[in-house]
């Protein structure tokens, strides 16, 4: 039967359009129930004995949730206990319309076989289709459609002769009006809370219930703590007229009463608006898109240098005001920044947060505060009865809402990740917190892998150059299985040198647009954690078919130069090739071969040639003003059985490291030039912007304190002045300066050449740069490979590759993933450092002051590459007399003045008193300041056990 659906829509140009859709009703839509004998269905989803222990519905029944129940209680629905649920098409469509993430989760549940969720397409069913009536709102119609479907089910199942008891259907709705109407028409209907609470066997489900509106009222006093948010229409009007600004809310990591809103302007013109105080933050949560209003200029403030953490039990409002006052210390006029307040939220970006529970001090209380692992996210109030079991576990909590009268947002428990401090759990937490996609690859993705056994076919050879005869070898860190680059060097008959960089041809295996490609594009990068690697592409590719291992034939993308002995490039060419690596060496092995004068085999000769050229190249690069910066990288020695770190050392760099690096840089630059020449509009490049001069302030001040001059006018000037910066009797000074300089730098980013005009790579002093050499672990390189392949005619193109807007969106994702993977890596190192110190107990170490803050100094321990903060105003002790001078910057504690680079002695121990945020605690031993420093303790050999039962 044909019906038409008519609706009017506003078009983008402001017009009004009438749209008519044909709508077909059918009589062959089955109910999906096992017990039904009427429907001619092939397979059933809903079980015959749909029993769940409930004191409200002791009989077998199916559930029909309405839209709001699905939207708000998806966590409950996901629980394995809840089975045999009918999702009505009306609900599915509404959910899809209102929340994409919930829709995705709902679809996942429906696909799960054990859950027995059935989608009933009531909108196309002859008997359950309802048309909107005059005077009926869209919501009312949908509610009616759900009721009609429920009614149909209850009658349909009753008439099924096969089951004398008759299955029943239970409608779940939280809408009072809907409930009454359903009762009138004789349906079984319960509120979601009622139903879940009636499940006798599974009391823990109640915790996963999201709070609905009427529950929230009880929780807090009716005192309004926050100003009201403006409605969206007024926000939009305000943004249009310029009285409000739209931006991303970024909470401060160090101070929970402070945040900035990053307002994206046109082009480079972006600003940051400072927010200070709870009232002005007005319930913004990290990463929300908010509308802010600027305060009058005389109320502008400067960001405080205080480190302030929201700790302890749920606070009263009085305490809050005091903290507010602490912030309002008048700042120098110059330091003041545009300050504003949040007037409305445009888009919440709430996701489930990882963290731990602060168990309430009051026994029997079911309301507890949850502290997220990410310090920028406020604490969340949740209701749970399993507090005792959840204490000491890492759990996930989702925010449900943040009413005006509540100091904290309200949320509900989602799931437990495992006990805190557990390595597996912590790894899961840091992957989740950094938004690293780490699930196993799906079947769809794996289906695009080549079939094993795999070998190179003659067809593959047609477009490829056969380079199997060349003495190619790879040099990598020990234990590396994803080898994506290999090198060769040989002397040509004309006396020149031929140097080849061979990169794994990943784009041969990953074809544009398929599931494998999309997954890789989404992951963006392989993430290396201590002792674990989260691959961007499935292992078959990353560690086998793409990896350029020795003595096997592999496909490669080669960049081959002809150079003279002065390392001047005479000719460059790119080709797809097949190589056969003769050796996979580690940096140390390669170094040994080069140094061992007795060896004269081909590989060694090749390495020596490469090394010689690399030295020249490096010298040239440094002359051009490339920066050599420093950051301490730590390597753990991991116990092979327990996987606990037993020792740690900073990474050492060898000559061969820089040899490989030089040729990779050279290949990247050559490729960047080639793809930019070929595709000026859509080349994927990488730039490193020059930092604004103000970034160098801290470096200049620090250098000045040691009477050293640093020039920052250009990269070259900086590099040169860093080279000559030396202080007698302080050999580590130069490294410290370089560490500081690194902190002044901007992030290097991928971008699409058609969307930007500034290509310069500041750090490498190269006018153009890209990433070509690691396609196994970076998606950007795959794009660059494809572009280059098109440029040399080795592969065909596809539309998205040439679309600069799509490229640009991809670049943004890659930048985000790249940044997050770095954070995750750092977090992983920090966690392993903690594990290490846990086993070591208390240590005494020498370190250097890296930064001076108003109430603390930040100390770097070179031996461990570890940074820690020494606080001078601890809560339990009287605050010593602190005088902070911003010019130095120096901090005078009682009689002693701390400057940057001061040598100090500290004790290092693991502070596990707060298991939610275990941290490395440092206390001062030397210089001795009475009342502040601690006596040097004897190094305790035994480890402290973490208190898990707190």
């Amino acid at each position, binding site marked *: 039967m044909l019906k*038409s659906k*008519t*609706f*009017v*829509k*506003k078009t983008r140009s*402001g*017009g*009004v359009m*009438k*749209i*008519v859709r044909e709508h077909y009703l059918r009589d062959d839509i089955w109910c999906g129930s096992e017990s039904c004998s009427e429907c001619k269905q092939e397979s059933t989803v809903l079980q015959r004995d749909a029993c769940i222990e409930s004191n409200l519905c002791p009989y077998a029944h199916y559930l029909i949730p309405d839209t709001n129940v699905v939207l708000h209680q998806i966590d409950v629905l996901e629980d394995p206990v809840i089975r045999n649920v009918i999702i009505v098409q009306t609900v599915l469509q509404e959910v899809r319309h209102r929340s994409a993430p919930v829709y995705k989760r709902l679809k996942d549940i429906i696909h799960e076989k054990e859950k027995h969720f059935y989608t009933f397409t009531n909108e196309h069913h002859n008997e359950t289709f309802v048309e*909107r*009536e*005059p*005077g*009926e*709102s*869209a919501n009312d119609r949908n509610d009616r459609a759900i009721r009609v479907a429920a009614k149909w089910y209850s009658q349909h199942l009753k008439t099924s002769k096969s089951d004398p008891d008759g299955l029943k259907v239970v409608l779940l709705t939280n809408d009072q009006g809907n409930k009454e109407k359903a009762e009138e028409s004789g349906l079984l209907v319960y509120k979601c809370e009622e139903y879940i609470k009636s499940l006798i066997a599974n009391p823990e489900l109640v915790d996963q219930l999201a709070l609905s509106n009427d529950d929230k009222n009880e929780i807090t006093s009716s005192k309004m703590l926050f100003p009201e948010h403006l409605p969206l*229409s*007024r926000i939009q*009007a305000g943004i*249009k*007229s310029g009285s409000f600004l739209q931006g991303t809310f970024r909470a401060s990591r160090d101070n929970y009463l402070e945040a900035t809103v990053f307002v994206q302007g046109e082009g480079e013109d972006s600003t940051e608006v400072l927010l200070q105080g709870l009232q002005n933050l007005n319930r913004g949560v990290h990463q929300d898109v908010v509308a802010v209003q600027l305060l009058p200029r005389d109320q502008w403030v400067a960001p405080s240098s205080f480190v302030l953490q929201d700790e302890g039990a749920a606070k009263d409002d009085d305490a809050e005001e005091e903290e507010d006052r602490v912030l309002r210390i008048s700042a120098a006029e110059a330091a003041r920044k545009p300050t504003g307040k949040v007037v409305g939220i445009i888009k919440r970006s709430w996701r489930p947060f990882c963290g731990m529970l602060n168990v309430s001090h009051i026994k029997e209380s079911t309301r507890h505060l949850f502290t997220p692992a990410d310090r920028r996210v406020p604490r969340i109030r949740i209701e749970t009865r399993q507090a005792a079991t959840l204490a000491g576990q890492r759990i996930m909590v989702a925010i449900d809402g943040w009413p005006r009268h509540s100091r904290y947002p309200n949320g509900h428990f989602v799931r437990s990740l495992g006990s805190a401090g557990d390595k597996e759990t912590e790894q899961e937490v840091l992957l989740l917190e950094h938004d690293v996609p780490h699930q196993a690859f799906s079947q769809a993705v794996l289906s695009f892998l080549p079939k094993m056994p795999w070998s190179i076919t003659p067809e593959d050879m047609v477009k490829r150059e056969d380079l199997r005869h060349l003495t190619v070898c790879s040099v990598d860190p020990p234990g590396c299985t994803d080898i994506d680059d290999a090198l060769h060097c040989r002397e040509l008959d004309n006396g020149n040198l031929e140097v080849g960089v061979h990169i794994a041809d990943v784009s041969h295996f990953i074809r544009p647009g398929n599931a494998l490609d999309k997954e890789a594009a989404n992951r963006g990068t392989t993430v290396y954690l201590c002792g674990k690697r989260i691959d961007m592409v499935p292992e078959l590719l990353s560690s086998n078919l793409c990896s350029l291992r020795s003595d096997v034939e592999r496909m490669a993308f080669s960049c081959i130069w002809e150079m003279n002995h002065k390392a001047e490039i005479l000719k460059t060419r790119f080709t797809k090739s097949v190589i056969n690596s003769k050796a996979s060496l580690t940096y140390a092995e390669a170094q040994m071969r080069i140094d061992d004068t007795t060896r004269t085999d081909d590989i060694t000769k090749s390495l020596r040639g490469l090394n010689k050229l690399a030295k020249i190249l490096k010298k040239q690069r440094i002359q051009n003003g490339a920066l050599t910066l420093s950051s301490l990288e730590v390597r753990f020695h991991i116990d092979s059985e327990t996987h606990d770190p037993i020792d740690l050392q900073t990474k050492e760099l060898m000559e061969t490291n820089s040899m490989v690096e030089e040729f990779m840089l050279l290949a990247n630059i050559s490729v960047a030039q080639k793809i930019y020449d070929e595709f000026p509009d859509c080349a994927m490049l990488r730039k490193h912007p020059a930092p604004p001069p103000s970034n160098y302030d801290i470096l200049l001040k620090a250098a000045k304190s040691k009477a050293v001059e640093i020039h920052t006018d250009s990269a070259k000037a900086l590099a040169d002045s860093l080279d000559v910066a030396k202080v007698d009797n302080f050999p580590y000074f130069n490294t410290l300066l370089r560490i500081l300089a690194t902190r002044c730098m901007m992030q290097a980013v991928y971008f699409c050449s058609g969307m930007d005009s500034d290509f310069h790579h500041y750090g490498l002093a190269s006018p153009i740069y890209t990433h070509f050499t690691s396609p196994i672990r970076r998606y950007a390189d795959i794009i660059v490979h494809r572009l280059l392949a098109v440029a040399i005619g080795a592969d065909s193109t596809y539309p998205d590759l040439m679309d600069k807007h799509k490229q640009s969106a991809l670049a943004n994702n890659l930048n985000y993933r790249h940044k997050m993977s770095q954070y995750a890596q750092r977090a992983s190192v920090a966690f392993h450092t903690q594990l290490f110190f846990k086993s070591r107990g208390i240590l005494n170490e020498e370190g250097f002051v890296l930064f001076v803050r108003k109430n603390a100094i930040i100390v770097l321990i070179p031996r461990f590459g570890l940074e820690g903060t020494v606080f001078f105003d601890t809560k339990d002790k009287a605050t010593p007399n602190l005088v902070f001078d911003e010019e130095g910057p120096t901090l005078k504690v009682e009689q002693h003045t701390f400057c940057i680079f001061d040598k100090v002695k500290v004790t290092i121990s693991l502070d596990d008193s707060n298991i939610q945020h275990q941290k490395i605690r440092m206390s001062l031993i030397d210089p001795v300041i009475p009342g502040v420093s601690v006596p040097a303790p004897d190094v305790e050999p035994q480890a402290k056990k973490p208190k898990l039962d707190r």
Partner: protein
Amino acid sequence: MAAVQVSEAEKVYILHGIRDDLRVDGRGCEDYRHMEIETDVVSNTDGSAKVTLGHTAVLVGIKAEIGKPRPMVPDEGYLEFFVDCSANATPEFEGRGGEELGTELSNTLYKVFNNKHSVDLKSLCISTGEHCWVLYVDVLLLQCDGNLYDAISVAIKAALFNTKIPRVHISADDEGGKEIELSDDPYDCMRLNVENVPCIVTLCKVGHRHVVDATLQEKACSVASLIISVTHKGTVTCTRKVGGGSLDPESIFEMTEAGKRVGKALHAPLMKLLQQEESLGKKHQKVGFLG
């Protein structure tokens, strides 16, 4: 225009018949042929009607769109006409064959309907000088069997009656910017007042008399024809002579009087019929094009 070949003998027969107030198909001089009207036949228009008159069939669809009012009349909306002479109607319309007739018809329709006395154009205004409704009246000729004007005018009146314009609200924000907001209830719509919408009566002078609703044969015998648009009160809003031939003042006067009479009588049953159909609501069985 579609024409038939009529022999001298046939002409004489028709002429003599009309002289005696008896036409070939048995009608009197001021009688219409059988007429069928159905509204709401095209679902993706805002209003539509199909009219068959003898074998003449026309379809009218009305689309309402938001536009800018004409500068001279900032508080009125307006109508746009387009007549499509489909080659379905007669093979002569094939290619660009129907273009001339289409233009002629639509020009006349502008004259007859696009004024504030015929249609309440003020009700089409959304915000003065900025937004108004523009009604695009599309006429499709499905079959030609004479007397196109009358059939089209009846169809337009029926389609205008059937037109449902979605109701819009102008919301002004603080800064004076105006935003058109659409009601989300599809049943919330505005209807037009079609009381004063005229119908066209075409009179053909055949011999010394004149007939309404001439068939193609009669048309072939006619010297000249006059179209008169008449409201339900009998007010003549427009007259126009179409075709070749000349008319003396006296017969023009006579024809006008006859047109007034016929036109006035046409409105009442038409309105009654339309209201009857409307009141059936959804129970109304649609006939459509296959009936």
